[in-house]
């Protein structure tokens, strides 16, 4: 059993990540924290509560940073719609937010659990994680690992060289990569392999009951946006790839690298500079995911949805 805190900005793929984290019996989801990213904090927080209500998930949800540390806020409305989770009808929240700010919730949770037993899985901008690190410096050595969805090595997102989560708060990301804890970076190169094809959606719809239908509605909207905005054949469902790593380390392969976040370029600010070959002379600080076992991945996602539907 692996303990995790999911730090997210739902977001369609974030919603699937919540379902995977809550619906897989090998994972113990200690809480969900939200951060401004795909949409404003208010919207993504409401969406997180709506997904919990829809799936019957009861874990603490704490709202976090309303904007990046330094930069002006970016949102991804062109991909996730005006609500941040356009597509299905969203239910009303079934419970209240945890009163603590997300960074405090992360600190409290990690510090009260035994050392080395909690994974952080940030799948939005890294603002909350950076704030938590500064709030409690011992967090870095106490966390078991950080598995983050973000960055790009050879395929790119909103610009020719950057990915949204990192570019949305590059200073926070730079702090996270420099901290010295075990990091697995799940970049676009990996998540572009996690395509929600028609076959994937048909299976989720057939096996997942009412919750499966909700997921299909979500990912159908998401797929249409990606076809329209990015010219992809189907939606890459980025965020659950990071969660899946904690269930089955073999779900993707990875290579060690030194990763640093560019903060100053005209074109490249927010780029994850990934040095596999030691050209910068710095020790490796991350495992960079590169090849996804897509069959295994979609089995895990589908099983989690079925599990939540049945329970």
């Amino acid at each position: 059993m692996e303990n995790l805190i999911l730090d997210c900005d739902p977001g369609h793929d974030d919603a699937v990540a919540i379902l995977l984290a809550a619906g897989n019996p090998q994972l113990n989801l200690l809480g969900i924290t939200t951060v401004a990213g795909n949409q404003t904090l208010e919207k993504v927080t409401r969406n997180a509560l709506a997904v919990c209500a829809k799936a019957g998930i009861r874990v603490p949800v704490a709202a976090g940073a309303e904007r990046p540390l330094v930069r002006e806020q970016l949102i991804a409305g062109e991909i996730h719609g005006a609500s941040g989770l356009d597509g299905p009808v969203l239910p009303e929240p079934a419970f209240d937010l945890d009163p603590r700010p997300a960074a405090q919730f992360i600190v409290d949770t990690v510090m009260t659990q035994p050392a080395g037993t909690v994974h952080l899985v940030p799948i939005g901008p890294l603002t909350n994680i950076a704030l938590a690190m500064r709030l409690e410096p011992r967090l870095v050595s106490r966390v078991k690992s950080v598995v983050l969805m973000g960055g790009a090595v050879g395929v790119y997102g909103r610009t020719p060289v950057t990915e949204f989560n990192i570019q949305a708060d590059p200073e926070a990301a730079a702090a996270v990569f420099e901290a010295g804890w075990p990091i697995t970076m799940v970049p676009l190169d990996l998540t572009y392999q996690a395509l929600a094809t028609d076959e994937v959606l048909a299976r989720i719809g057939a096996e997942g009951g009412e919750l499966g239908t909700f997921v299909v509605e979500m990912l159908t909207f998401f797929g249409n946006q990606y076809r329209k905005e990015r010219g992809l054949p189907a939606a890459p469902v980025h965020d659950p790839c990071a969660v899946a790593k904690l269930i089955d380390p073999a779900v993707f392969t990875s290579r060690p690298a030194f990763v640093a976040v560019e903060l100053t370029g005209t074109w490249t600010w927010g780029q994850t500079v990934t040095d596999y070959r030691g050209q910068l002379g710095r020790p490796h600080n991350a495992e960079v995911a590169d090849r996804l076992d897509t069959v295994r991945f979609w089995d895990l996602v589908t099983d989690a949805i079925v599990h939540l539907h049945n329970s």
Partner: protein
Amino acid sequence: MPKNIIIDTDPGIDDALAIMLAAASPEVRILGMTAVAGNTGLEHTAPNLAKIADLLGLDVPLGRGAIRPLWRRDTVPDANVHGADGLGGYALPDSQRTLEPAVPLLARLVEESDQPVTIVAIGPVTNIALFINEYPETARKVERIVIMGGGARDVLGNATPTAEFNIYYDPDAAAAMFDFGVPITMIGLDVTHKALVGSAHLAGLYASGGPIATMVEAITGHYGEAAYSGNDLDDAVAQHDSLAIAAAFLPDIVTTEHLFVDVENVGRLTSGMTVVDFAGRTGNAPNCDVALDVDTERFVTLLADRLTQLDATLKERA
């Protein structure tokens, strides 16, 4: 009719082979050659250029160009790749030639040419940026600039994780060149890493035993120790610059895509990166034919055959 070209270069081991390839190819007429600092300092690249021209019997004007990048003072050559003298210690006889200032020479050669000129820039493009700035009207008459530089995908950098040396060394010059408007063909590192040439390919040349054979065998041996090779089991190394020369007269030896390219020149970690806008995210109009693949076999055969022919010709002449 052969294509008129000017070679701007920083010899440089792979530069030497590239100049030999051009000299050996009837498809091109070399109007002149200009030296720039890059693989090593100008105090070596300029004399090296003259010595190579002497060796090849190339009676064309030679230019001595920029001694430093436009603005950068923090980029330096890696002496491990080409040696401090630029030719891995290979001694050629001193040249008696006088080199002219490179930038006015570029302008004169372009103006006096009876047909449009292609500039093949196989070092940092400092001379090109100065030429564009000082003689913009003349520079607009250039038909195309073919550069060895940058990277498009997979392999972006050899100087840093994201920057190829020629662009890294003078990114401001490269940014000015990409912005200028003359058509550009970019032969980047990811493609030249497929242009691997080893002693097995050059057996015919080495058997010929003339001055080209002797020099190529000596300098590629040195280069091989520090240069990129595709396979530890053989001694094949990337002949970056020769591929740019080949692409200048055999454009279909590479497959290209017409894309917008700019150079990152202010990033702390990414300075010198060629930003290639594959998906049109920037909304800028394409300005560059970016090489994405190469017909390796055709290239290797071309280089080996031409150098072997050149060796035979020079042996006869001697």
